[in-house]
């Protein structure tokens, strides 16, 4: 029977199933307005030896079906270390949070920083800006990468003000690709500053839904002046970490608790 990790984030819910220490399956679903319903949709008909929940909905999961909860910071660190054993810095940008985590060489959390309650520097910000530019979230990064002649500087980091800044730039006839690049640069600076507060050391791994954005990958690497590792499915790494945690406590095949 399988072991599962469930990451209930503000925008998406990710499920990772482990079998014999390997990822057997995974799924990602929009959180929507009723996270519990969505979880049940993901889990219906399934049974696990152990399920560990993480993400902002973890306590909700604990009262209904999860065996244990861990914070998304520990889960993120664990998932990243599993994929990149030499990782020393994790940058995890999700729907409503951005986090920077410094790892010890053994993969333990040494220090972490998290954005405050403001949405600046999160996936939510990029979503709002994509909307203002008439793009889908998936189109935003490639659109920005197609910019010629550099970025239009964006001054506002507040989601509300940035939106009106974008609207007025469009009205002024600025190229939307250059505006999009400017938005990525602004956000990249902010995330890089968060990362500098924990100290940036190679290897740097970029995870979370925002890591899917190719322009974000590029500007962040430029800002930090370091190459970034981005896993194939960056949005399931936290769920993977939760699943690995479940495996440890279950005493599974790859018991790596004391590594």
């Amino acid at each position: 029977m399988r072991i599962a990790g469930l990451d209930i984030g503000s925008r998406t819910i990710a499920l990772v199933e482990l079998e014999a220490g390997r990822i057997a399956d995974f799924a990602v679903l929009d959180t929507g307005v009723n996270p519990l319903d969505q979880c049940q949709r993901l889990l219906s008909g399934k049974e696990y030896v152990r399920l560990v929940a993480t993400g902002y909905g973890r306590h909700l999961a604990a009262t209904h079906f999860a065996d244990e909860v861990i914070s998304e910071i520990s889960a993120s660190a664990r998932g990243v270390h599993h994929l990149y054993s030499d990782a020393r810095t994790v940058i995890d940008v999700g729907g409503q949070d951005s986090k920077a985590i410094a790892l010890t060489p053994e993969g333990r959390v040494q220090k972490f920083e998290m954005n405050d309650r403001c949405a600046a520097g999160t996936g939510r910000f990029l979503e709002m800006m994509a909307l203002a530019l008439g793009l889908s979230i998936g189109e935003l990064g490639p659109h920005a990468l197609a910019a010629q002649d550099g970025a239009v500087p964006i001054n506002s980091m507040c989601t509300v003000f940035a939106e009106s800044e974008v609207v007025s730039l469009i009205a002024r006839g600025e190229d939307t690709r250059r505006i999009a690049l400017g938005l990525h640069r602004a956000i990249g600076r902010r995330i890089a500053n968060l990362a500098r507060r924990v100290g940036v050391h190679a290897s740097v791994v970029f995870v979370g839904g925002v890591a899917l954005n190719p322009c974000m990958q590029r500007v962040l690497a430029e800002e930090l002046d370091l190459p970034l590792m981005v896993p194939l499915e960056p949005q399931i790494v936290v769920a993977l970490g939760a699943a690995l945690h479940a495996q440890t406590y279950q005493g599974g095949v790859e018991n790596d608790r004391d590594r």
Partner: protein
Amino acid sequence: MSDYHTMWADLGLDLKRHDAMLEALPAIYGDLYLSQENRPTGMGYFDFVVSEIHGARVKELVDHKAQGGKVIGTFCVYVPEEVIVAADAIGVGLCGGLDLTVPDGERVLPRNLCPLIKSAFGFKVARMCPYFQACDFVVGETTCDGKKKAWELLDGYVPTYVMELPQKKTPQDEAMWLGEVKAFVSQVEEATGNKITSERLAQGIARIDAKRAALQRLYDLRKADPVPISGLDALLAMQISFYDDPVRFTEKVNALADELEEKVRQGEGVKPAGTPRILMAGSPMPIPFWKLHSIVEGSEAVVVAEESCTGTRYLTGPTEVKVEGEGLEAQLWAIARRQLKTHCACFTPNTERMEDILRLAREYKADGVILFSLQFCQPYLVEAVKAEKLLEKEGIPTLRLETDYSQEDVGQLKTRFEAFLEVIRQ
């Protein structure tokens, strides 16, 4: 509980809003406080004080005023309570810790100001606090720019006397602060019509020293593992110390400490031995700001001390009056000198506070330190940078948190604290 509506109306409260505020309290208090396990019975008195939060004690103030006594509002542990007591006046701490009155404060003050100032100011503007209403005058102080300038505006609502704090701790600063204490004596004498003699001041010093000693006893008992009292309960006692009758309060805290001593002897605690212990260091936490303590203690950890004005910064002492210098002058020197050992972040440099944090972390066997700053509280926000570096160098896990009185970031703070706890445990 008696019906205090006539008294509240006489004090000019906005009865409708005030009723709504008080109606919300029992449920919140029940959830946070009464539901705690293994509570000492000595907390019964403090539960009673909370159940009468705007009642019994306010009635005492009103009765005192009816007999010609004065009530003086304060916002800082630097205001010498000894002097107030010596003049037979009653001092009440007025710092606001409630989100509800922040928008009222913002009707007058800029939004980018700390919630403590906005909440307190809001209580006055909205006529929601009977203690504020009962004050003959209030005493502000220059511990930060926000407060300093807010007093000028507050003076339009209630007479506001301002004490100037020095910013350094040199002999010149001591002399300057002594001058401020002396000026305050004159102010209190004039307001009350009571002469502050050496004998009266000796009694004031003794009373307030006894109050601090009782609280210090309570704090010392929190060094035990398992800890015999929750951080929430200890914080509450500390918060109530700012407005309760000092003599009665001292008695109740000593009774509580007696009970806790017995618990420590029996090895009884509110949580099992080995529960992660947290030192909270930073901005004040006025009543009813219980947000961070409830997050910590709702997560299998316990707060063992507060390095705060609502904590150890209130406890420096005792006031040592040197024998060689007799009389009022020596007493006032002793008061001023004791106060300057209170290491508020408004001073520069303030290395003593750094030493205090480190010392407290060791004495209370803290597994981790939370450096807490209220939003826009610049002195503590900036000092947290230094404190974090120092603690990390000593290998003590440290978490910096900046928050206000609202509940909207509780989920985020919980995530951070839980991750911090996982770091402590790993």
